[in-house]
């Protein structure tokens, strides 16, 4: 019971306090532990823990297929994908390459042409220069997934050099090198699927914005107005919106705010109409159409900048301070063993 209950708490408290105060201790070893070793320990534990996760995922998918649970067909795809990734990562390198030695300088153009049939050559002249610079030994910049395809191509260019040999990239490098089976899986299957999910965000942002911008109360209206100003102010066309349009919209906005206070609609209309006439006349008199004369408040980019720099920054900083204090208090509760999520 001690090992299960008290021991984890003792370890958590000890390591927590050590790392917290380690930041202030003037000792190289303590600093090294706090800044590097402790995080590496976590990485090592997390790396081993991935087996637990992977086995759990595999177990659930296999059970789904075996028991023919609802939508079990999708699980076959998951199992195949898992098996394929393991195969490409651990059992099959699929990263063959060709090295040619003692190249005949006269056959360089022909060699470039041959390479261009299997590899996208952006600049043949540059490639020819590269080959000419390393006639003694040149590695063709194309990775072949299968050994036979590498050998077939080696045979096709055999006459252009003294020796054409095929080899395979070392274990480990094969997962990173472009053109290998693993990178093919990563860039041709995984990346497009991830991008698809990410792209869905655009549609979800649209539907979420629609819901947020629906005018239900004062706050939603404020959000709508601020959102529109930010959207227009942050695109080039925002700078082209004339001052008189901005001032008119502002007067309408003020009119909407004071409308509940003025029951007489004729008076309200008079105030709004009079305001528009006064501001427009003032603007014409003071030459606000010249950019330097125009008050900054009548420029949409300026208003959007102001919204972003002041109200938004203030609100988000208030939340950030709350979050920081919450993190400190939660950490403190865990370090003292008051709260135990483990």
């Amino acid at each position, binding site marked *: 019971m001690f090992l299960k209950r008290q021991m984890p708490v003792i370890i958590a408290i000890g390591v927590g306090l050590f790392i*917290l105060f380690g*930041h*202030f*201790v*003037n000792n190289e070893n303590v*600093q090294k532990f706090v800044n590097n070793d402790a*995080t590496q320990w*976590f990485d090592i*534990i*997390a790396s081993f*823990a*991935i*087996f*637990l*996760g*992977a086995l*759990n*995922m595999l177990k*659930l998918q296999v059970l789904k297929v075996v028991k023919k649970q*609802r*939508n079990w067909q*999708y699980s076959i795809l998951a199992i195949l994908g898992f098996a394929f990734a393991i195969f490409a990562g651990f059992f099959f390198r699929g990263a063959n390459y060709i090295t040619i030695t003692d190249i005949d300088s006269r056959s360089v153009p022909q060699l470039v042409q041959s390479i261009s049939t299997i590899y996208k050559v952006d600049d043949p002249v540059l490639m020819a220069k590269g080959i000419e610079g390393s006639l003694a030994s040149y590695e063709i910049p194309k990775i072949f997934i299968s050994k036979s395809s590498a050998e077939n191509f080696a045979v096709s260019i055999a006459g252009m050099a003294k020796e054409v040999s095929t080899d395979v990239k070392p274990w480990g490098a094969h997962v990173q090198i472009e053109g290998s089976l693993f990178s093919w899986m990563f860039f041709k299957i*995984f990346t497009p*699927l*991830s991008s698809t*999910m*990410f792209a*869905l*965000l655009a549609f*979800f*942002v649209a*539907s*979420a*914005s629609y*819901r*947020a911008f629906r005018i239900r109360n004062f706050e939603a209206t404020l959000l709508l107005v601020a959102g529109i100003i930010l959207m227009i102010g942050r695109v080039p066309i925002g700078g082209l919106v004339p001052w008189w349009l901005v001032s008119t919209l502002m007067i309408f906005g003020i009119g909407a705010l004071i409308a509940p206070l003025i029951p007489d609609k004729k008076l309200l209309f008079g105030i709004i109409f009079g305001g528009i006439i006064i501001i427009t006349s003032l603007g014409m008199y003071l030459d606000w159409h010249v950019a330097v004369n125009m008050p900054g408040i009548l420029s949409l980019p300026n208003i959007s900048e102001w919204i972003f720099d002041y109200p938004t920054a203030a609100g*988000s900083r*208030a*939340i*950030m*301070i*709350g*979050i920081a*204090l*919450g*993190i*400190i*208090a*939660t*950490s*403190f*509760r*865990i370090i*003292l063993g*008051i*709260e135990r*999520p*483990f």
Partner: protein
Amino acid sequence: MNNKLLAIGGIAFIIILMYRGAYGFLFIAGNAPAFVGVIIVSATIFYYIDAAKSGKEIYLRPISGLNAIEEAVGRATEMGKSVLFVPGIADMDQVDTVAGINILGHVAEITAKYETDLNVPTCRAIVMESAREACRESYLRAGRPDLYYDDMVHYISDDQFAYAAGVNGIMIREKPAACFYQGKFYAESLLLAETGNSIGAIQIAGTGSASQIPFFVTACDYTLIGEEFFAASAYLSNKPELIGSIKGQDIVKFMVMVLMVTIFVFDAFRQLGLFNFNIITFLGLS
């Protein structure tokens, strides 16, 4: 002033004096504001934890998002559907995830009481293990260990969008009646919350990721903003020592506000040329 406050304040002061004495020798030079901050914050929170333990009444304002947790699980029970809990995509080295797992413990206790299915897809293997431990304990606490099974907490993928796709798939297929998003989230927050919204689930979110809060506010029924999220487990547990830490946190927030206003006023006066005292340099903040 009570004796405990004096004792804790005295200890904090002695620690700061010791730090000052060994500054630059035993302790790294240049970290003084952070050290003093840590000691003051720790002492304040510790004092209020102690005060709460001693029986001092502490008021916590009602947080609608937390009060709605039981309502959401109850709705799922009535509808005969499951409850989905998403603990974010970060590992256990993030406090958000730890806070999320704490909340999971309370949600699991309610699902155990109501005999409702709980589904917890995780993005990290260590989070999966911690979440299982939290759920197992909660089912035991609720007196229903028979309802607990390991696979209610399961792993999907370490990759952000693969995880989001997996969770969205679960939502679309199983149509849970209540969705909880409690943890660290990034761009997938809106993907999850909008899908949950589209299936008509009651959704309660909480995160320390400031940039994701607007998305959750838009798409969820309740959102725990900022410190509410970190206070949630203490609020739900109703344990005096945990509630005391919330009070301490609030007092620290008040101290921060006072400090900000003081710095603002002093610096404004200095810039207006009323005096030469530079409070920012004095506090070692520049």
